Structures are given as C-alpha cells and as structure tokens.
C-alpha cells in the first residue's frame, strides 16, 4: 500500500509544550499535505510542502520533508488545548492523494 503512516498513533502533552508527529511513505511523491480533524468534523488543510522543498512554516506550525528518507514531520510549537485533534498526512502522487492513519494529539490544560 502507498498509504502514509503517522507516528506516533497517539500523543498526549501539556499545554505550552511542543508536539512532533511524523509521516513515512513508500514511493516517490509530488507533494505532501498535513490536515487536522477535530472530533466529529471534516478535515482542515494546514500546510502543503512540495517535493523540492525541505521546510515550510505557517504560524506555530513547521513542516519538514526528507525525500531521501521518505518522511515528513509536523511540529506544533507552544501547543494549546485547541490543538487537540487528529492530524493526517496526505501524500500526493500525480492528481491523487492518499491519507495516512493519523496521529491523535491531546493537549492537556
């Protein structure tokens, strides 16, 4: 399967701490996106990184991409209770995206 896999599956941290989650994939990609899903809701796009980029920032989010290791990481700095959600990577192959299994993040106030 080409599906990306997030690691860890679940993460629990204190408010103010940083949260790091990883995504690994198996075949070459065009780009990779990260999405957030709050409980019972649709997914919200966070950031897109192209295969020729190594790092992107958006507010408290930092995404890195290492195509040689076929992996990406999402760092959320200074986490807040509102960051509690599931986070998914979506790997892009041509016009197609495949979502990973997700990391469930819980931020404790």
């Amino acid at each position, binding site marked *: 399967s080409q599906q990306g896999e997030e690691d860890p599956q679940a993460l629990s941290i204190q408010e103010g701490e940083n949260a790091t989650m990883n995504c690994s994939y198996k075949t070459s990609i065009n780009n990779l996106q990260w999405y957030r899903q709050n409980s019972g809701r649709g997914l919200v796009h966070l950031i897109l990184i192209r295969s020729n980029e190594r790092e992107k920032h958006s507010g408290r989010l930092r995404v890195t991409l290492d195509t040689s290791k076929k992996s990406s990481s999402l760092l959320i700095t200074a986490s807040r209770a509102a960051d509690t959600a599931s986070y998914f990577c*979506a790997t892009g192959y041509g016009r197609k*995206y495949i979502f990973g299994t997700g990391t469930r993040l819980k931020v404790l106030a």
Partner: protein
Amino acid sequence: EAGVAQSPRYKIIEKRQSVAFWCNPISGHATLYWYQQILGQGPKLLIQFQNNGVVDDSQLPKDRFSAERLKGVDSTLKIQPAKLEDSAVYLCASSLGQGPDTQYFGPGTRLTVL
C-alpha cells in the same frame, strides 16, 4: 465564500437498504472527491471527479456503490444494498484545479448500518 455542503449529516439504516448522500462543492472547484472514513482510520478515497469525468474510482466497491457528478457541479454517492461494514463517515471534498492542490472538506455524513 461558502464551504463544501453535505447532506444529510447523519443517517441510520438497516442492512440491505439503500442510501444516498449529496455534496455541493465550492463554486468553481473542478475536482470533487468522496472519501470513506472508518472510525479510528484515515480517509480512504472512493472516487475522484475532474469536472464530470471520473479520474479514479479504483477503490470504489462498484457492486454496491455508485457515484455521479451532475453537470460537473453537485455529486451524489449511493450505496445499494448497504452492509454493516459500510458504517463510516462519508466525506466530500473539492479542490480548485487538477494539480497538487488544497482540498476543502465538508462536514461529512455519518452512516450507521444496523
């Protein structure tokens, strides 16, 4: 700008019954996606439309699932007959163009098959 609309939000049916979901994408978005998300898993692409043509339906169980996109705008996804394992959230998403692009998701339809 209005987001992706889906209806109904919730549906409970008996196995072997049929059900249909509706999606209205963001105006002007060429690409429309239907995903199935089983509890605790990531979304799985069922079908992808580019305007009113099918780009990918390789994971659509065609013996029971069907989908159409009328005039390249609204879309319906139908299940007939439903099985217990079809219980999931069905997500519709749309994106502007053909290439690597942000997908905008609707709130989803939660289907329970009893």
